[in-house]
Structure formats: C-alpha cells, structure tokens
C-alpha cells in the first residue's frame, strides 16, 4: 500500500532511542569535560530532530489516518505485548513538537545551568526524558505506552528536586506521587482491557475489539484511564501538583513540562481512551466538559491572584489545558482537531513564556511581579518577546494560540450526537468568558512587568538583553508560533484524517464535520 524503504522501518525506533544512546554516552563522558557533554547532548538531540524531519518529509499526507513507518515485533510474548510503534497524523505533530523543544532547551541552558550546575547529569536526564516523551507519542501498544509514559516520571522528578527552587523537594515528590497514583489506576485499566477485549494490548486491535464491551465495564475502565490521563493533563481538581512543580522546576524543566509532558495526558485521551471506549467516552464527556470549564475559569482566576510570574504561567496552563479538554469532550472532529492544535500551540507558547520567565528570573533574581517593571526600557528585546508570547497565549488571531482556543470553544456549540446540547452551549459561553479573563491576566501581567519605569530596586542595575543562545533557542519557536498562526492547516491537514477516522469509527451516527 504505502511505499516503504528499508530505512522507514528503522526511523521511528532510531528517533526514540538515539537520545537513549546519547544519554548513555553523556553518562560515561568524563564529568570535567563539560563542553564535551554539552556537545554530545546537543548533537544527539539534533540527530533525533533530523530523524524527525525525515519522518515529516517521508510521511504520506494523503493517508494521515494510516499508521506509517510502523514496526510491529514481538517484545514480551508472555503477556502478548509487542513492540509496536508507528506514526499517524495525530502523533506526528506531537512527536515533532517534542523533537523540536529538546534541542531548544539544551541550547538555552548552554551557559547557565541552574544550581547545583552539573550539566552532565542535567543533560542526561533531558535526553532520557526525550526517549520517554517521543516513545509515548509513537507507541501503539498499551504496555509500551505505559513504559514510556512512566519513563518520563523519574527524570522530571530529579530535575525538579535537584535543580529546582527553594521548595523543590516538596514539589518533586508531589509531582511524583500524583502521577504515580494516576498511572497505577491506568495500568489496572489496561489490564482490564486486555482481559475483556481479546487478550491483546495492541491499540488498533483494541479499537476494534473493545467497542462492544458492556457499557458498565466500559465506564469503569474509562474511569481508570481518566484518572491516569487527567492527573497528567492536569484537569481540575487534580491540578494541584502543577503550580508547585512549575514554580519550583528549573526553567528548562518547566518548559519541557509545559510543552510536552502535559500533552501526554491529553494525547492519552485521544489515542487510547476515546477511540477504544467510545460509549464510555460519551457517558464521561459531560463530566470532562464540566471539569474543563471549571479548569478554564479556576485557572484564570488563579492567574489573577498570583504574585509570582512562573506560578501565573502555571495557572494559565491549567486554563489552556481546559480549552484542550473542552475540545476533546465534545467528541467531534472539530473539537478534537482543535484540541490537537491547542496542544501544539500551548506547547510552543507556554514553553516560550516559561523561557522568558526563566530569563527574567536570571536577570533580576526574582519572579515577583510587583518587584519588576519597565522591562521594555531595560531589556527591550526580551520584553517584546514576552509581549509576543503573551499575545499569542491570549489567543490573538494570526498567532498559533488562536487556532487552539477559538475552534475548541466553537466546537462546544454542536457536540457529538447524544450529548446534551444545552449543557455544552453553556460550557461554550463560560469558556468564552474564560478568554476574556485570559486577556485580562496576561495583559495585566505584561503591564506590570514591561511597562512603566524599572522599580527602584533595579533602577541602576545593568540588565543584559537577550543573549545569543537564547536567540538561537527562541527564534525557531517564535517563528513557528507565527507560521502556525498564519497557516494553521500545516497541523490540521495532519490531524484531520485520523481524527475524522477515529470519530466516525467511534460514533458512526455522527456526521463528520469538516475541519476548519
């Protein structure tokens, strides 16, 4: 069917495990040679990115809903779990996002590793994280997915706990335990699926098999999956780990957390929970919708109350992931397309915001908004970039944020057949209110930090504007925010195929709506 050359069988595996090899090399590299470690790590992540570009180039955009470049080999025969990886239009943008963010993070931290320094350990952890993140997006077997999903946990735990802020140990263990609790229930659900739906962990097979499970069983299994994914997203009321983790994590940790880690949860919903258990998804959808809009409003109100720049961005993440989850909860092609776009956009924009917050903290040694001010005077480039990202984040048309937020809200106007229209329209109105709040807190934040004159405290201090490594790391991200804002179809044309396919397969009676 699809043309595949020999390398295509290997490219995904290489993409996943090249960073693992890099991590191993970093681990063995002499600690004293810091430059060497940095070069190895950067090269590894660039090789992975190169492989990612190859995948993008060789991806057949006419068959986005078909798993491409897939590999399906025996792995753990005793439990019928297979090494099954593949890429389709849903995983492609997220894989791209991951491979794109990691080199940016390595470049950004080039000259200023947070205390206690130790670039060797720091970069090793980033590379292990990359293995887990890429693997999760490409896995097509539940056990493989689980292994990669969990692989992410430890490096992040150490990254927060070792290189984080003053309250790092608390934040790290909280992050760890919350996520672990979710995954414990998730693995129980995976096993239940295995036993109830034909002794397999293969996701495409389960999509066929599990749809006919009794409704009650589906709802229970979905419940376990929901806990696993919703904690990761995080949805209200499981979000409490997020502000702590984000605030305490080192800049790069926050960026990866926001840009990719949160997406593992939402991706789990659209890759696993909804396609495999559509009936249960319909039962759960209103609840997911409720929690999503609570998240939007709660996150926004939380933002308005924050004094700390990073904590503010963290709460804005809760709100933005609320939009993503709202899109998903409509169970329509329109909404889920928007959700995937929202995931990519939020990854880029919030990642950038955390970069900016990190750079501000590095320069002023504080993130307290009330102590900042007049950034436009002291470091105009940094201030402009912050402004650009703030506008992108509040959903300004023409920038990437808009295409995640606006269609997600709109999709609630007409949710999938069988869902309560009035309820979802109410959600729509509330979510729309949320965008007003978003504009409010972001502009207020920008006003307080960038406008006016520098506070007395920093008046006479010399503040460096954007450094070269920062430029190298940021420019591609900023460019992408703009490009995706102008040409959203770059993502939609990838996602629409599989989304339509999934939705029509799961909800046959729904008239597939065209993507925006």
């Amino acid at each position, binding site marked *: 069917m699809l043309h595949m050359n020999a390398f295509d069988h290997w490219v995904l595996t290489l993409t996943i495990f090249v960073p693992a090899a890099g991590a191993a090399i970093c*681990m063995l590299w002499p*600690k004293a040679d810091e430059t060497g470690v940095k070069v190895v790590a950067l090269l590894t992540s660039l090789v992975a990115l190169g492989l990612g570009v190859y995948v993008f180039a060789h991806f057949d955009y006419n068959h986005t809903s078909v798993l491409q470049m897939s590999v399906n080999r*025996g*792995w*753990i*025969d*005793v*439990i019928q779990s297979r090494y099954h990886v593949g890429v389709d239009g849903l995983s492609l943008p997220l894989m791209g996002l991951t491979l794109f963010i990691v080199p940016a993070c390595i470049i950004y931290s080039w000259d200023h590793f947070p205390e*206690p320094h130790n670039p060797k*350990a720091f970069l090793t952890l980033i590379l292990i994280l990359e293995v887990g993140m890429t693997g999760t997006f490409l896995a097509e077997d539940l*056990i493989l997915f*689980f*292994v990669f999903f*969990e*692989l992410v*946990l*430890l490096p992040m*735990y*150490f990254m927060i*706990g*070792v290189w984080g802020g003053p309250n*790092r*140990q608390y934040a*790290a*263990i909280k992050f*760890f*335990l919350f996520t*672990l*609790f979710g995954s*414990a*229930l998730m*693995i*129980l659900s995976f*096993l*239940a699926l*295995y*036993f109830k739906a034909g002794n397999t962990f293969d996701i495409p097979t389960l999509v066929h098999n599990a749809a006919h499970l009794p409704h009650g069983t589906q709802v229970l299994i979905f419940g376990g999956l929901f806990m696993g994914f919703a904690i990761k997203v995080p949805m209200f009321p499981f979000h409490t780990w997020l502000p702590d983790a984000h605030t305490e994590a080192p800049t790069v940790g926050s960026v990866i957390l926001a840009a990719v880690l949160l997406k593992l949860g939402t991706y789990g919903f659209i890759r696993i929970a909804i396609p495999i258990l559509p009936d249960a998804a319909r039962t759960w959808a209103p609840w997911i919708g409720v929690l999503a809009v609570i998240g939007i409003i709660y996150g926004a109100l939380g933002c308005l109350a924050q004094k700390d720049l990073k904590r503010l961005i963290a709460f804005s993440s809760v709100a933005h992931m609320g939009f993503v989850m709202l899109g998903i909860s409509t169970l329509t092609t329109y909404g889920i397309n928007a959700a995937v776009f929202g995931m990519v956009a939020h990854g880029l924009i919030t990642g950038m915001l955390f970069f900016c917050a990190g750079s501000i903290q590095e320069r002023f040694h504080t993130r307290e908004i009330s102590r900042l001010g007049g950034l436009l005077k002291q470091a105009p480039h940094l201030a402009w970039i912050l402004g650009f990202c703030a506008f992108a984040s509040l959903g300004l048309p023409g920038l990437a944020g808009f295409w995640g937020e606006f269609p997600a809200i709109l999709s609630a106007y007409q949710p999938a057949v069988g869902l309560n229209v009035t309820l979802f329209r109410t959600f729509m109105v509330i979510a729309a209110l949320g965008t007003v709040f978003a504009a409010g807190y972001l502009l207020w934040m920008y006003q307080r930090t960038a406008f006016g004159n520098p506070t007395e405290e920093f008046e006479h201090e010399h503040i460096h504007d954007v450094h070269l490594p920062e430029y190298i790391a940021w420019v591609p991200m900023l460019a992408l925010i703009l490009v995706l804002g102008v040409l959203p179809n770059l993502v939609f044309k990838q996602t629409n195929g599989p989304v339509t396919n999934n939705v029509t397969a799961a909800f046959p009676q729904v008239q597939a709506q065209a993507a925006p």
Partner: protein
Amino acid sequence: VTDVLATIVKIKAPYLDYHALAPEIVLTGVLCVMLVVDVVVDETRKYLVGAVAGFGLLGAMVPIVTLALMGHHQREMFGGAYVVDPFALALKALFILSGYVVLLMSTTYIEEGDYYEGEFSFLLVSAILGMVVMASSRDLITIFVALELLSIPGYLLAGWRKRDIKSNEAMMKYYLLGVLATAVMLYGMSLIYGFTGSTLLTAIGAATRGAVGAKPIVTLGIFFVIIGFAFKVSAVPFHFWAPDTYEGAPTPVTAFLSVASKAAGFVALMELVFVGFYGRHDVWGPLFWILAALTMTVGNLIALRQTNVVRMLAYSSIAQAGYMLVPFAVAGDNLHATRDALTGVIVYLLIYGAMNLGAFAVVIAVARKTRSGEISSFGGLFSYAPGLTLLMTIFMFSLVGMPPFGGWFAKFVIIRAVFDAGTPAAVVLVVVLAVNSVIAAYYYANVAREMWMRPVPDDDFTRVRVPTPVSIALFLTAAGTLAFGIAPNLLAHVGDLASLSHALGA
C-alpha cells in the same frame, strides 16, 4: 547380627538420578572441602574458605544449567518425594545465585569486622543447600528437613556480630520465633499426616480433594502449616521478629534473610498450597487474602516512618512479601488464575531477588564510609558517589515498580494473576495493592531524595571505595534488574514452570 545384615541386604537401594542430584552433591562436597580448608589454613588466609564457597556455588550452577538444557521432563526420586523439574531448577538457580551475591557482599564486611570468616561461609553454604533441597521437596518430611537445614544456619548467622547486643537480640528473636513457627507448622503437618495417611504432597493433594479434606481437623492442619510459613515469610501479623532481626544481623545476612530465606518460605508455600492443599482453596484463599492485605498495608505504613535504612528495607521487604502473597489469595479461583499466580510468584521472587540484594549491596558499600545505617547518612551521596547513587536509584525505583526497571514486570504479572481470577474479592485486593504501591513510592523516593537533593550531613566528601566483590555483586544485581525490566521475555520460560500444576491434574 546376621539377621540385621540380611535385612539390610534385602532393602533395595532407592533409585538415584545422580545428574538431577548433582547440585546438592556438589554443594555437600564443597561443604566438606570448606571444613577441611578452614582447619588447615592459618588465621590470615581464612579468605580461602570464602573463595572455595564462591567457586563451589558457581560449580553447583553447572548441573543446573545442563539439566535445564536437557529439557522439561520431570525427574522423580524417592517415590515422588523429591522432584527435579523446571520449577525446582529455576528456584535452585535463584537460591544459588543469590547466595553467591551475598557471599560477594559479605567477604569484605566479615573480614573488616574481624568476625569468624571460615564458619560464616560454611553456614551460608549449608543454608543454601537447605534451600536447594527445599526447591525439590514434595513431601512433608523433606520440606521440614530442608527448612531446618536452611533455618539453623540462619539463626547463627543473625548473631554473627557477637559483641553487639543488637545482633544478639536479632538472633534470639529470630531463633525463638522461628522455633515457635516450626512447632506450629509441625503440629499442623502431624494432623494432616494423621488424617490423610501420607506425607507425600501428591497423595495429600488427592486426599484433601476427597472426603478427608472436608474434615475440620484437616482444615485446622492446613491452617497451622500456613501460619507456620507465614512466620517464615514474615507476613503480618507474624512479622514482629523481622525488623529487629534485620537491623541487628550483619547487613549481608539481612540481605540473605530478606531474599533467599524468604524465597525458600514462598517455595515451600507454593509446594504445599498448589500440590498438597489445592482442593481446599476455600480455606487458604481467604486466609491468604487477609494475610496479603494486612502484610502490604502494615509493612508499607510502618516503613514510611523508618529513619534507619536497614529497618526501612526490612519493612519494605515485609510489604514486598505482601505483594507476593496476593496471587495465593486468588490462585484457587480457576485454573487460569492458578497458573498465572504460580508464574507471578516465581517471576516476582526472581526479580525481587535481584533488586533487593542490589539495594543491600549499596547499603553495605555506603556504610563502609559513613559507618551509619541512618537514611540521612545517604545525604548528598550524588555529589561524591554518583555511580552508587545511580545504582541505588535504580534499585529503589525498581522496588517501587517503575518501568523500565525489573520491578514493574514483577508487579505486573501479579496484577495480571489477580485479573485472571476476576472475582470481586480479587479486584478489591488489586486496588489495595495499587494504593500500597503509591504509599511505598514515598519512602523509596525518600531515599532517592536524600541522595540527590540533600546536603552531605558532615561535609565529608571522601569518595566511597567499593571493594571488588561488592562491585561484582552490584554489577550482577543491576544487570538483572535492568534486563528483566527492558526485556522481560528473559523470563518467558517461567510461564512453563507452572509444572507444579501438572500435579493438580491440570
């Protein structure tokens, strides 16, 4: 005299399969050699005894490998009282290898602590011989002999630091409670023998399935035997000896008790439950359910509060025993569940052996420098011993059950066995297990936190010198932990080991 001689001549020599008995024969031979060497060599060269023990253990592995390669058929001796099958072989390998690792860990420890060296290795190997016999026992008396052979050296080893009052306490508690447990178990065995008329497990199995099994007195017998072994595997509420014994005993001995000795208890339980008492799962099913739930929960909750790393590992190993008891609770529900439960326990034992021994090896290595057993003594380990920190991190998170380390697969097979049973009681138990795993994650992660995120307590950044034998032990256990986690297919054949269930007529 001639009469006696005539009768002796008339006794037919039992059939002996020397190939199948080779591991036991090698170990016995090694024990004799060790005794001689210990007497002959002078005080400064006592390490030779340890060397003989090490080579002897590796030598005993050779017939196990050849037997395993020769295929799956079962070799029976003494009318079925002694069986060498893949199940027995896998566990013999576990006992011998974990014994070897313990020997590696203890060499320097015993030497530097100025304790008796020769006798130490001798007792260690005799305990291993007892375990190896246990793996093949299919008879109440053989099980009992094996149990005594492995326990008595254990009592002595626990008190090896004889100038230390805690070590004396460790030994005394272990000994008294061990003997109590043996008495209870022996009483149960006598009841069972009395009513089934046989000490052979297969015969007992057949009898308990029939009318005899329904007699209340047999129920009582089964109950006593299981309780006896519950002491051995330190299941709550029969665990009180474990923390004190583990803390007081020399650390390598603690490692040995918490892995090999515990595994031997589980092996005996598997033999008894799956062969002898299979028909009475209405008795042992609920009993194991309660033991498992209590053991996991109590072990974990008390482990949360420990500040001494060995004590923490002691309670954690109680909790781990709880996880291993879970499959027993559901094993009787259907034949699928039986098979999965058996596989689950064996897989868990193998992986647990690697990760728990590894954790103790790190504790021993670090304690050589810090001279402390407090968890806080691990503070800042990452800054001066990154290698050990990494290894300890691997072992700790493997014990949590995080992929890609072996522990995840161990837990996974156990959960799978429970799902295979699928009864409401089973599902409740699995939820208890899941919640417990998260509780346990806190104290394991706490060790990681101490190593990675806390300052060095006394600003002493001298590097930790790891003796070569301990390094080898670390390498072996870490390799096992990682390999089982990334390629669990290595354990694929364990599924076939459920040959015990062949005795069930399944």
